[in-house]
């Protein structure tokens, strides 16, 4: 499992800036929004937390279909399924490597981008905290979606369609935490809920993911 994780990380580095691209997409979405809604600070400041969370979510989304697609195409997936590691472990390792290549860098860089959107000063630390707690859930849910659609042509869009509704609770609590942070009202409740979602996802979804993979390999 460690071997798989290391291989996936190495592959995403080799594939040309694995870490950079998710980040770059995040950056670009955040930059596009002012072009879309206009540069007015009065408009930007209140929407900054929400936009950052939505952008992080979309950036995570865009790299989801690669989680299993490459291994499926070159035939690694059936080989992993018959290897002496449990398929649940494969699912978990894939989610973790997606988080390391996408969620983690996103989390680190989000405060910087908050700045471009004139985010309220009090919100920075909560942005960081909510993304740190919530991004792993995004990766795990995404891995589940990727397992459902592996092997389907045009899987990319279908995958988004399946995964986005599942992302909604995480997004709501995460963005809410940051907004409350910006207001100065209590952030504990939403932050805790984000944490609970993440824990729940990691406790349950590996099994669903492995089941979906088994069905798809049949």
């Amino acid at each position: 499992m460690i071997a798989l994780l290391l291989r996936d990380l190495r592959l995403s580095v080799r594939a040309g800036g694995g870490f950079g691209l998710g980040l770059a997409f995040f950056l670009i979405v955040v930059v596009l929004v002012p072009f879309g809604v206009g540069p007015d600070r009065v408009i930007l400041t209140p929407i900054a937390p929400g936009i950052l969370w939505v952008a992080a979510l979309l950036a995570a989304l865009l790299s989801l279909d690669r989680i299993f697609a490459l291994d499926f195409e070159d035939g690694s997936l059936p080989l992993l399924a018959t290897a002496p590691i449990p398929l649940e472990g494969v699912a978990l390792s894939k989610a973790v490597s997606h988080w390391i290549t996408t969620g983690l860098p996103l989390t680190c860089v989000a405060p910087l981008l908050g700045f471009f959107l004139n985010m309220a000063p009090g919100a920075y630390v909560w942005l960081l905290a909510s993304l740190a707690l919530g991004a792993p859930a995004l990766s795990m849910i995404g891995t589940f979606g990727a397992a459902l659609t592996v092997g389907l042509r045009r899987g990319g869009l279908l995958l988004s369609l399946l995964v986005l509704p599942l992302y909604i609770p995480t997004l709501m609590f995460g963005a809410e935490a940051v907004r409350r942070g910006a207001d100065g009202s209590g952030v504990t409740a939403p932050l805790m809920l984000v944490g609970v979602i993440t824990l729940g996802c990691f406790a349950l979804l590996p099994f669903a993911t492995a089941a979906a993979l088994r069905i798809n390999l049949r």
Partner: protein
Amino acid sequence: MLQVNDLRCARGGVPVLERVSFALNPGEALILRGPNGVGKTTLLRTMAGLQPPLSGTVDYPEGSDAYASHADGIKSALTVTENLTFWAQIHDRSVPETAYAAFDLHDLRDRLAGTLSAGQKRRLGLARLAVIGRSVLFLDEPTVSLDNFSVRMFADWMRDAHLGQGGCAVIATHIDLGLDVPALDLTPYIAAADADGGADAAFL
């Protein structure tokens, strides 16, 4: 070591083969023959547990099987050594030096797998089998795009290293491998048009 009993298997919900039975002892191999579309790939996938049989049983020691088809789980962005090491690690083993020798990969060790020619890539795929140390092999056209020399190399490895050490193998192929093992022509086992089973059986 491998015991197949009255197996019936389907592809795309349609029964393809039925009444397939055979047994292999350690050190024995079987070559599957038959025209295109007879169901060799289907049979191998069923035996390897990648799809459920309609009926019948396949028995071999749990966790001793390996399946290999054209797609061999080779990552173009990793070198030959890295590819082999990865599969070895996944199976909790190390890469034996003999694996390189047996498939003439010495000179290619540090090449990215993506830059190999078709035949070289195939050799790397076969070397994976020497690395993971599974004893029941299911091979689907393993020698596609290999030159004659490499085919012989593969046959030697199969005879001496794999079968010689008590492994067994079922190999689907259209060419003559030069292995002295029995062949099973699947044509007589084609499922009758009205054979039972298949995903849609309940609807017939």
